[in-house]
């Protein structure tokens, strides 16, 4: 029943693969046998991630990429196809998390809005558009978008991040329905609070620093995305499409406020 749960022979392109959640997914994907094209804006972290993947036995390349540029996105997929001959899986993980995200509405400039939407939402679209062609030609492919619990709920003064991540979740649905006929599936991974960023970053002012307000009582760890990425990239998930895998310590099931509110009320006669 579990014979498809591996990535031997699979080529995975992952954006934002040099740091944070992306790096942890790279590690798990490499352990499961994937070949990897690791993309990121800064050459240093993706080169390190590539070296680590190679040391784990993976065939890996690092491709400096700014997903805000559609020509970069096209070049990323072209480079992966040139090196590996195909692209089986695209993981859209790159996002702007910590910069200029937390502002009252009147202080947000056009440029700030556009920049965040471009990186977080258009970037996923550009890469999906570029990867869909070789996937459709092969009659098989998987697109995995990393969204956020903020794509399902609103965060105070977190306009661009919430809006773009909500867009990513619905982009996933449109991709799934539109590309099913070409053998391509699309799913989202929806992480809740998983600390990966500089603890001094401004966004931390609105993020919980402990799991005290979550039903699980703890924050997530970046490496917890690994087994999910492996599942969604493998043939074991072939029948899953247009859907989300949520890992959030129960935050969305409860809402983070009502935790600890435990009324007791007898049935009325």
């Amino acid at each position, binding site marked *: *029943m*579990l*014979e*498809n*749960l*591996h990535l*031997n022979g699979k080529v995975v392109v992952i954006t934002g693969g040099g740091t944070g959640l992306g790096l942890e997914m790279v590690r*798990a994907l490499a*352990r*499961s*046998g994937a070949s990897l094209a690791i993309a990121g804006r800064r050459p240093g972290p993706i080169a390190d991630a590539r070296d680590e993947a190679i040391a784990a036995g993976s065939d890996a390349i690092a491709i400096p990429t700014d997903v805000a540029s559609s020509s970069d996105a096209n070049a990323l997929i072209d480079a992966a196809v040139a090196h590996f001959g195909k692209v089986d899986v695209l993981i859209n993980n790159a996002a702007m998390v910590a910069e200029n995200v937390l502002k009252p509405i009147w202080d947000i400039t056009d440029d700030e809005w556009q920049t965040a939407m471009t990186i977080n939402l258009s970037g996923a679209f550009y890469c999906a558009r570029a990867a869909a062609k070789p996937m459709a030609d092969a009659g098989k492919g998987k697109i995995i978008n990393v969204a956020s619990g903020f794509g399902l709920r609103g965060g105070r003064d977190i306009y661009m991040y919430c809006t773009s991540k909500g867009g990513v979740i619905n982009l*996933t*649905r449109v991709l*799934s*329905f539109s590309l*099913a*006929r070409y053998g391509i*599936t699309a799913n989202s991974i929806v992480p*809740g609070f*998983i600390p990966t960023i500089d603890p001094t970053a401004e966004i931390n002012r609105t993020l919980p620093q402990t799991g005290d307000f*979550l*039903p*699980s*009582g*703890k924050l*997530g*760890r970046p490496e*917890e995305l*690994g*087994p*999910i990425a*492996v*599942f969604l990239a*493998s043939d*074991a*998930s*072939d*029948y*899953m*499409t*247009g*859907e*989300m*895998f*949520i*890992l*959030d*310590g*129960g935050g*969305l*099931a*409860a809402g983070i406020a009502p*935790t600890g509110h*435990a009324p007791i009320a007898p049935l009325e006669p």
Partner: protein
Amino acid sequence: MTLPSLTLPIEYDLTGQTAIVASAGGAETPLLAAALAEAGAQIFAVARHPDATAAILDAVANVTGRPAPVPSAPAYPGYAGRWDTPDGAAAVLSAFDAAHARADILVNDTRSFFAKPAPEITAAEWDELHARNVRATFMLSQAVGARMLAQQYGRIVNVISNLAERGLHNCSAFSATQAAVLSLTRSLAVEWGRHEIRVNAIGAGWTTADDIPLETQRSELLVRYTPLRRKGTPHDIAALLVFLASPHCDYPTGQPTYIDGGANAHP
């Protein structure tokens, strides 16, 4: 005989874990139990009828290569009977105690299907369906959950239908049971989250355990409606079930994941 995969990711290893697998009957649950066994778990089977209990244990034996136990054997790892009452759930655990020491995993696959035009559904049918699908799930979760609370560890996975999210002709009673189990998934996850108990659901779509040729399947309108244009099988949800049952599934809780060929995502 299927041997455990050598490349199985460590996060999917259930070696040393014991799972109670409760089934509404039918041919799908045995294959799900087989997947758990393939990942290394020991299985205790629960169903209303002895044949259904035996079918689960047969599927497990097919994986382990050991002969399936007979019901008269001491420490028979199975229970046949109802468990939608406190006494029934207690009877399940009493039989469990004869076979195993500790319940790490509870899988509730209570998808007794029923479809009838709403005006014709009787109160007795409504109650019976809710007893099988909802009350049984709650009673066993409550009984096993008490032990999980005591041991400060547990994984509960409810296998539900994607009709938890959508309406369908003639499915008012069945859909209501599936939505109820989804809601139960959320509340138990929240209530037991601090005790290292995780409660999640897998939402299956239009499924079959049979190997039906695609051309035959596609003569059905519902299959053509499903974006991936085939029915789901237990194979399609096996790997996720194993992950949700494993100790490595720590941060995910209180959520359904639908594996339904894209049915839920489209208009």
